[in-house]
């Protein structure tokens, strides 16, 4: 008979191997990194442009320029672009984030020669037709009106604004901002931002020699640099904390989002603070989940995260809790932070979190695309692969005293900005 009460022996994660990105620079200065791996005959090619020239008077120009890249070039209408991409079974996505605007092509290799010229056209020759801009404005305003009815959306929006003010990270969008968009704005921004020297290309998947040859053929020439670019730079101070309450009289649940400006990936304490975050709210078995969901049943989910941006880092805890238990949930959150600061974590809990984090790291390296994601994390923070060596070392070796010290250094409930949308 087997003893079912006895856990099988287990081993620790020994080796975590990253596929290193191979760099290449084309004649016009375009930087390419390739990450090769996998059996499936496909690639993902990301064209990543730094966000530049932020102007609070034109808060949406970076977003709108990126979103409208599919909407027409001097040779191709939006219809023709969509037809061609879809015909070849490819996926063309635009993605706007705090620091970068990205155009991503997913394609089978056999269709690469047919799909790349379309990407070339949209990153070098977009014209932002007025009729398409009108559609964007009309539909985005409708979407915003729906989002504004979601407590979770309101809490994110308010939280970002409280932390980051009127910068790109925090600008508090309203419907009127969409009306202020113009073709001129987008055309001007496009010319400055979508240049080879402001672009990094990351190719992952089954990258072959002719993959790179094709990229060189379309992007290494007839796409020149013409302007200087100035990447966005913001500076943030740690706030003094406060409550930001948006009452919703008929809310069944309240959205809670609390936290503060923190360090980003470039800081030596970042990996250690990620361990602290994991213990507190970074996984299913975290203290916040164990207490507020699994013991009290106040919520479907609660979590915390440490986010690294180019010009800042921030830490937050977020949940949607029953409106009647909102205040009780906040009290429990504060309690958990206090415990983390006042009592050393036990070796048992720390060992569990260590193994969980290493397993999670290993599991996040599923295919060449995920290895590319790992590369982006370090590359855009100005770091190299030593970062991961250091991260793994920190996770393996951090002790209870250091966890406690980091909690005291970086988690101060009193200086948290506390956003509550709903009832309390």
């Amino acid at each position, binding site marked *: 008979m087997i003893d*079912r009460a006895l856990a099988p022996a287990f081993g620790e994660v020994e080796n975590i191997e990253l596929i290193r990105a191979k760099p290449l620079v084309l004649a016009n200065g375009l930087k390419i990194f390739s990450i090769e791996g996998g059996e499936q005959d496909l690639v993902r090619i990301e064209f990543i442009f730094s966000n530049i020239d932020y102007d609070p008077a034109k808060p949406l120009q970076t977003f709108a320029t990126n979103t409208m890249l599919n909407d027409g070039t001097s040779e191709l209408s939006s219809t023709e672009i969509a037809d061609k991409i879809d015909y070849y079974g490819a996926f063309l996505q635009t993605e706007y984030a705090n620091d970068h605007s990205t155009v991503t092509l997913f394609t089978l290799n056999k269709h690469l020669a047919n799909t790349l010229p379309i990407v070339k056209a949209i990153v070098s020759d977009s014209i932002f037709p007025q009729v398409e801009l009108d*559609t964007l404005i009309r539909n985005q305003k409708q979407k915003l009106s729906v989002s504004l009815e979601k407590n979770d959306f309101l809490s994110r929006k308010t939280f970002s604004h409280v932390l980051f003010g009127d910068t790109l990270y925090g600008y508090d969008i309203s419907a009127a901002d969409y009306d202020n968009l113009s073709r001129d704005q987008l055309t001007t921004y496009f010319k400055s931002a979508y240049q080879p020297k402001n672009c990094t290309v990351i190719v992952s998947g089954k990258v072959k020699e002719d993959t790179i040859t094709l990229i060189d053929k379309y992007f290494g020439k007839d796409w020149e640099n013409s302007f200087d670019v100035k990447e966005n730079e913001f500076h943030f101070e740690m706030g003094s904390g406060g409550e930001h309450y948006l009452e919703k009289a008929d809310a069944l649940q309240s959205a809670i989002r609390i936290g503060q400006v923190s360090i980003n990936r470039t800081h030596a304490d970042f990996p250690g603070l990620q361990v602290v975050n994991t213990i507190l709210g970074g996984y299913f078995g975290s203290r916040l989940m164990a207490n507020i969901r699994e013991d009290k049943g106040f919520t479907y989910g609660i979590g915390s995260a440490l986010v690294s941006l180019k010009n800042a880092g921030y830490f937050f805890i977020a949940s949607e809790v029953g409106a009647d238990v909102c205040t009780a949930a906040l009290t429990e959150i504060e309690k958990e932070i206090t415990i983390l600061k006042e009592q050393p974590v036990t070796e048992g809990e720390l060992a569990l979190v260590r193994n969980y984090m290493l397993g999670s790291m290993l599991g996040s390296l599923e295919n060449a695309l995920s290895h590319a994601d790992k590369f982006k994390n370090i590359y855009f923070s100005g770091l190299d692969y030593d970062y991961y060596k250091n991260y793994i070392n920190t996770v393996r070796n951090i002790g209870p005293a250091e966890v406690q010290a980091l909690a005291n250094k970086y988690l101060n409930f009193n200086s948290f900005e506390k956003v509550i949308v709903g009832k309390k």
Partner: protein
Amino acid sequence: MVSFERFTLANGLKVLVHEDPTTPMAVVNILYDVGARDEHPDQTGFAHLFEHLMFGGSVNIPSYDEPLQRVGGENNAFTSNDITNYYITLPSVNLETAFWLESDRMLNLAFSEKSLEVQRNVVCEEFKQRYLNQPYGDVWLKLRPMAYKQHPYQWATIGKSLDHIENANINDVKAFFTRHYNPSNAIMVVGGDVKLDEVKRLSEKWFGNIPAGEKLPRLLPIEDDQAEERKETVQANVPLDAIYKVFHMPARTEAGYYAADLVSDILSRGNSSRLFRNLLKDKKLFSDINAYLTGSLDAGLFVVEGKPLPGVSMELAEAAIWEELDRISTELVPDAELTKVKNKMESTMVFSEMSLLDKAMNLAYFELLGDANELNSETQKYLDVSSEEIRSQAKHIFRKENSSTLYYLAN
């Protein structure tokens, strides 16, 4: 191509093994052949509530999550109207921990009152978060009973109402476990950095002596053919009007399913699709419009949903939708457009093979459908669909008397 081996234990547990040496991870996916369609009409939401209780400790292991996290693993689960699916990913060196945990909760649960009480609350909060405290969140609570009058698809996985969950008691939980959580009612897929022989050994060791249980026949009412057009209007605190149309369509395993799926792609997949281009971009009638399938094991629903722009009447919006549905029901789809949706389907299948977990889930699901090998002929089935089949399937689905239409109006 997803390769696999297959064996069955004496107690009826089916095991599929997919060796993928390119990863250092292993995945264990267990599909139980039970979903919301197997619930009693007075105890809806139970399959899903039960899924939560599967994490509340088993007969020999007080905590499920903790030992798994301790060996670097992660897990989750989902419940649909048809199935309940549990999955673990972990470093392959610790594969046996997954067998230990999964076999113990298949053997028996701890049935703790505290766990039941807490998870009732958690699920009620999930109900509020996803269905009640969101604009349009309750739409499927309204659409399902419109479309289904006999079949248990008339309720959503979360249940008909909060009180069905609040009233669940421990005896119901035990009865549900005894009835559905048996080796003969489960399909396990083990994949990744694993070896067939080792999986056989571990399966025998941990699952071999679990009693088979009884595989009871599923006797679900069959939905009558709908004979009359159904319409309802609701008003709610939402910013925009919305329209929802649902039509009965073939079940996942019926021949017409593939043509119907391509119909939804022609109408709504990507920026070149008909609804997006014609109704949103050209005619400027909608700010948002989509078509998709529920894809269920019994006869499912074809869904069209959209939000008309301000100033566009519901009648005009609905007429414009009908115009597109009539067109695809009467005119043959041009070759280039058909090739387009087939190419998209083909590349989607290749991309889905990038993920170990997706592969494991797909194998389990296709095994439930009848044969996991069919996963590898799926692309061909789409490629074989003709434009005539698309037209005739569309014509059969898009009939007024086969439709239920909900006007969801802003107060």
